[in-house]
């Protein structure tokens, strides 16, 4: 499951609008072998998920 899907699983109230270029959440990959990560999280009510929470999503 990719990062975007994990976040949507954790927070079902998130919409695609949150992930648009003008949205509140920005996912990034620096092509350095470290994979996808949350570059910025500016959602007004939901807290940025921890790595443990993300790892727990199957």
């Amino acid at each position, binding site marked *: 499951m990719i990062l975007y899907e994990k976040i949507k699983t954790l927070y079902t109230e998130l919409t695609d609008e949150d992930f648009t270029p003008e949205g509140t959440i920005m996912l*990034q990959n620096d092509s350095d072998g470290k994979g996808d990560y949350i570059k910025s999280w500016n959602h007004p009510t939901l807290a940025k998920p921890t790595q443990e929470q993300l790892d727990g999503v199957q």
Partner: protein
Amino acid sequence: MSTVKSKKLQIGTDATSSNNFTIYQPATPDGTLRIGVGNADSPTEVGKFDSNGYVATNAPAFSAYLSADQSVSSGVITKIQFDTEEFDTNNCFDNITNYRFTPTVAGYYQINASLRSEGSSLSLAAFYIYKNGSSIFIPALDTEHSSTTHISGSTLVHCNGTSDYIEIYGRVDGSSPKFGNDNCRFSGFLARAV
């Protein structure tokens, strides 16, 4: 009328040699005129002219492209791995590790890039110009095409000639998204030194 014939002409006689300039012909004439900083005995070249006018020898320019498709995750802004150089006049582009342009001359640079997005059920394709690790501009964003699309754009960016670097990131939303090797390009050149 008299004619002065000399291979070097020093302008200035300041005690500090870097305050003086020298106009000269190289030791082995090659049809060029050089301008250097310093006294006539050891000028450091800063400019060169030939029969066509000024020759920009210290103006970085490069062009690189993606040699194979790069698979990405939908919705993730991903650095494009421009791994093949077409040219790189001053060896300022890293096509091996960081895929970034770090110009060695301070000035304003025109940065150009294009992205070919591939996949199915695509809802968004965009690319970003990054300076020193942060997005400074989104030159192109397409939400109209559900399959392959090709977008391009450019901007002017100031770089300090030492530590500033430029990268291109892309984003494709949809199924099996990737950056297509056809027409994914990154180029730049010094527009004006400062």
